[in-house]
């Protein structure tokens, strides 16, 4: 193996902390710092820090950047107010998902407005290749890849807003869910976004690469009394799975459209033109043939990605895309795609787990939903 892995500005910190690292989308990333389950529970009960600097950050400046993004995304962007964040899909002409992204509309202290798109690490190069030719129609727009100049830290958990709120010049507790602001942490700029990928309250921060270690340490220190710990990609995966959130490369890929994936809420199909619009309207009109569902296998054996899903008569009807033993619920959970006629909650199916047929039930998503009352606004 001669392929060199990229490091984030925090990779050295992870190594010093004794993390188990593994290659992910070309980066050497922490999988856990001792126990995936402990880190998962810490996020559900207290607070954790994730280094998510491997995710791509593309900045769009200039008049027409909203119009460009409106062309790219399944969701309207032209009416996104300053301070707003929106989840959407970027599709190819067949309606297949190229990536799922977050777009923020931000304003610098000096009054410059721009859009920021956060893309999956594994799709960053592909997205740049997809967007670049479309820039020709928007001559005032410039796209810049900010990934390597910045770091991104997700701070997630019920105690997060209380513990880290004071660290910032503008208190993120004032931010509503899916809102973002450019503020300062000890005099240095930071983008604070009240978003996340765990099902818990919290923020995602973008800072300059050279500030990453200092901000990370400050966050850990601020959360010390509340029991914050660093968490790796292992816990991030089990947390998002409990929260019913799709992961690109598993629940989403270029062969899957957003309507089959249950992401109609992120699609504004009518009255606008965007990549894949005709294909998606056609899928809507005929109805998706396969549907993303939650699955609960009986017993304790987790179903894993790739396991065939069978109907009561043993007919193959789909495939598992993610599965684990849920640390919060204490039983196995999975997501997968099944033929639309088998997708109703409560449908009894079977999952072929390496040759053994395990009964399972189609279950509503998400598996886990936090108590909103516990989140202090």
């Amino acid at each position, binding site marked *: 193996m001669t392929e060199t892995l990229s490091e984030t500005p925090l990779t050295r910190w992870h190594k010093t902390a004794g993390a188990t690292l593994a290659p992910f989308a070309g980066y050497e990333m922490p*999988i856990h710092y001792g126990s995936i*389950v402990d880190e998962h529970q810490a996020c559900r009960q207290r607070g954790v820090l994730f280094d998510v600097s491997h995710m791509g950050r593309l900045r769009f400046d200039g008049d027409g950047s909203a119009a460009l993004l409106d062309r790219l995304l399944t969701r309207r962007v032209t009416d996104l107010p300053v301070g707003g964040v929106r989840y959407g899909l970027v599709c190819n002409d067949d309606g297949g998902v190229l990536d799922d992204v977050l777009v923020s509309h931000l304003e610098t202290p000096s009054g410059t407005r721009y859009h920021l798109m956060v893309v999956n690490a594994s799709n960053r190069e592909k997205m740049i290749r997809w967007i670049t030719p479309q820039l020709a129609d928007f001559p005032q727009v410039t796209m810049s890849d900010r990934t390597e100049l910045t770091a991104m830290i997700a701070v997630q958990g019920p105690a997060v807003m209380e513990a880290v709120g004071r660290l910032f010049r503008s208190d993120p507790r004032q931010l509503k869910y899916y809102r973002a602001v450019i503020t300062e942490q000890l005099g240095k700029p930071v983008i604070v976004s009240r978003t996340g990928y765990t099902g818990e309250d919290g923020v995602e921060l973008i800072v300059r690469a050279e500030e990453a270690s200092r901000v990370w340490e400050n966050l850990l220190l601020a959360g010390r009394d509340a029991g914050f710990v660093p968490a790796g990609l292992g816990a991030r995966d089990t947390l998002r799975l409990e929260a019913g959130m799709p992961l690109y490369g598993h629940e989403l890929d270029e062969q899957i459209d957003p309507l089959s994936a249950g992401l109609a809420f992120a699609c504004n199909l009518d009255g606008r033109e965007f990549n894949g619009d005709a294909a998606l309207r056609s899928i809507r009109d005929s109805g998706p043939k396969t549907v993303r569902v939650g699955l609960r296998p009986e017993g304790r*054996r987790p179903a894993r990605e790739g396991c065939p899903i069978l109907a009561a008569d043993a007919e193959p009807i789909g495939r598992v895309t993610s599965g684990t033993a849920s640390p919060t619920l204490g039983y196995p959970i999975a997501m997968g795609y099944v033929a639309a006629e088998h997708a109703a909650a409560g449908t009894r199916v079977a999952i072929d787990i*390496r040759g053994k047929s395990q009964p399972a039930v189609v279950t509503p998503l998400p598996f886990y939903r936090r108590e909103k009352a516990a989140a202090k606004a």
Partner: protein
Amino acid sequence: MKPEELLYAESHEWVHVAEEEGQKVATVGISAFAVEQLNDLVYMDLPEAGKKVSSGEEFGEVESVKAVSPLYSPVDGEIVAVNSELPDHLERLGEDPYGSGWVIKVRLDDDAALGKLMDHAAYQKQCAAEG
């Protein structure tokens, strides 16, 4: 059992051979190093007693939150006992890997496979290289 007195397979199973009623019986388990590497065990699938196994053959599997790991028989013979309490007490694999965390007992057909196993010192070297 003391880890220093056991034999080890490259795939991290340990073996202890004892005479029982004139026959050689191997107790097989998973090394402490492997259990630690697996991290957060959630499920174990074990065979029934009476099954014949040969060395290198998969006889069961152990699952962590993250992944599935096959268990390979380090010896040739017939499974004569299975630690059937273990799947309900996976913590024993971590707390007592060389005692109550044993997995299966195999009545050996012959000693041939034992020659391919490592002693404790050689196994320690392998772990150091992997860990």
